[in-house]
């Protein structure tokens, strides 16, 4: 009985759907989080009778063949990379990217990771670091005696040093973009890594053509739309229920069959 396994694929698909929605809702307040969606596709078809086959030797054709489907599968869980809203904060090391691009983060093992979460802090050496303490590349050093730090739209980092009238430029932030940023691999901790599907990273100065600008004292909120998620959740739950009804119905038919000849 194929209906049982078809309904099982439907239930599995809806379960994935609910998991993705749950993850979106759980990350509603995660800085720089991008909403994910599950994409579904139908499964292979069995050709029982070919449409367009001849039904007689005078050339009459079968208008509708018989093709039986085998259910559904999750084709992809993809990220919607639309920007989130910018939220103001009081932390001078909170920077948001207004437009395209990612900050490059040097991981402890020396590899590169990328993030849009601009919730940074200072390390004891005066470097900008993520909440895990990973250094933002290219590195910069803010003098320990600096009283204020200003980061402008082009990513220039300037520090106010007591006794100096002019601001001292201490570093330059850099942005990285990808041909297909939906193809980046999520590492957790708001970090992403390059994959063969994302394409090679291209570094550039904030504010130049194709790159976003830097907004100090702002954080990018997640782009999760709660209303949309809740409606999707309801739809997914109902779809799950309906598939489980099919399982019950198929089961009942089979038990009728088993009763035959008893």
């Amino acid at each position, binding site marked *: 009985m194929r209906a049982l396994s078809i*309904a099982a694929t439907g239930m599995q698909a809806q379960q994935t759907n609910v998991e993705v929605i749950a993850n979106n809702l759980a990350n509603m307040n995660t800085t720089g989080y991008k909403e994910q*969606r599950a994409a579904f596709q139908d499964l292979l078809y069995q050709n029982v009778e070919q449409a367009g086959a001849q039904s007689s030797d005078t050339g009459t054709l079968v208008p509708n063949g018989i093709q039986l489907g085998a259910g559904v599968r999750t084709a992809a869980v993809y990220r919607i990379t639309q920007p989130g809203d910018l939220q103001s904060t009081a932390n001078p090391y909170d920077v948001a990217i207004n437009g395209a691009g990612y900050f490059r983060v040097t991981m402890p093992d020396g590899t590169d990771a990328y993030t849009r979460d601009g919730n940074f802090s200072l390390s004891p050496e005066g470097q900008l670091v993520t909440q895990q303490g990973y250094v933002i590349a290219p590195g910069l050093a803010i003098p320990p005696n600096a009283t204020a730090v200003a980061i402008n739209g082009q990513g220039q980092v300037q520090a106010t040093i007591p006794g100096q009238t002019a601001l001292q430029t201490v570093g330059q932030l850099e942005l990285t973009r990808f*041909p297909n940023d939906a193809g980046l691999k999520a590492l957790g901790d708001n970090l992403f890594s390059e994959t063969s599907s994302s394409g090679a990273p291209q570094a550039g100065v904030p504010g130049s053509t194709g790159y976003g600008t830097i907004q100090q004292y702002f954080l990018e909120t997640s*782009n999760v739309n709660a209303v949309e998620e809740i409606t999707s959740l309801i739809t997914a739950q109902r779809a799950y229920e309906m598939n489980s009804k*099919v399982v019950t119905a198929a089961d009942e038919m089979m038990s009728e*069959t088993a009763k035959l000849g008893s």
Partner: protein
Amino acid sequence: MDNASLVSLSYQLAAFRSMDVIANNLANASTPGFKRESVKFEEYVQPVQPAEGQSGSQSVAFVRDAGVVRDLSGGSLDHTGSPYDLAISGNGYFAVQTPAGERYTRNGHFTLNSEGQIVTSEGYPLLGDGGPITVAVDDGDISFGADGTVSGKQGQIGKVRMVDFADERALTKEGSSLYASSQSPAPAADATLSQGMLESSNVQPVLEISRMIEVMRAYEATATLAKNTDDLKRQAVEKLGTVQ
């Protein structure tokens, strides 16, 4: 004598197939661009020997499934916000290039690949008027016009090819939301493209569930019929075989 059980058997097989199709519709309720299907049955009439004491020709009708018909009505448009999610309103299909040749789909979920080509979840390129459409990083935010025109910051990039067929029902399904066609496609006349949307499946849950109950009950009724026929036979054997 066996006709009654064979006729019920023919319906039972048909009911199982009906159930498979309903299960497939419900399983694909969330598949973008999926079109619901229904099984069409027909009679298969066979003449039989008239019973003793009766004259004239008699026949029994078996059930056989004649075809699975696709309901081609459009699904509602579901907003996703992803710039490469496209939906076609009206008659039309996207053309994609697969290793096995050109295939057609209504599932408008596309992404970019590492070269910036617009591709399906499987990585098959979406075809424009001049082959696959490649988006450069400098194009910035991409917009799709209602007629399929793709443009970015640097002007027009290409045009999504939307095609239509003389006989849509003759398209064969291949799974992964793709259709194959032996007919050559014509440019779609009344297709409109919407960006950031996906066409949801046109499966109506209420309809499917009530169809399901109907099939289940009809199956039960036929099973009862088969059981009664069986009882009849058993009684005949028991009673006739008893020596008085």
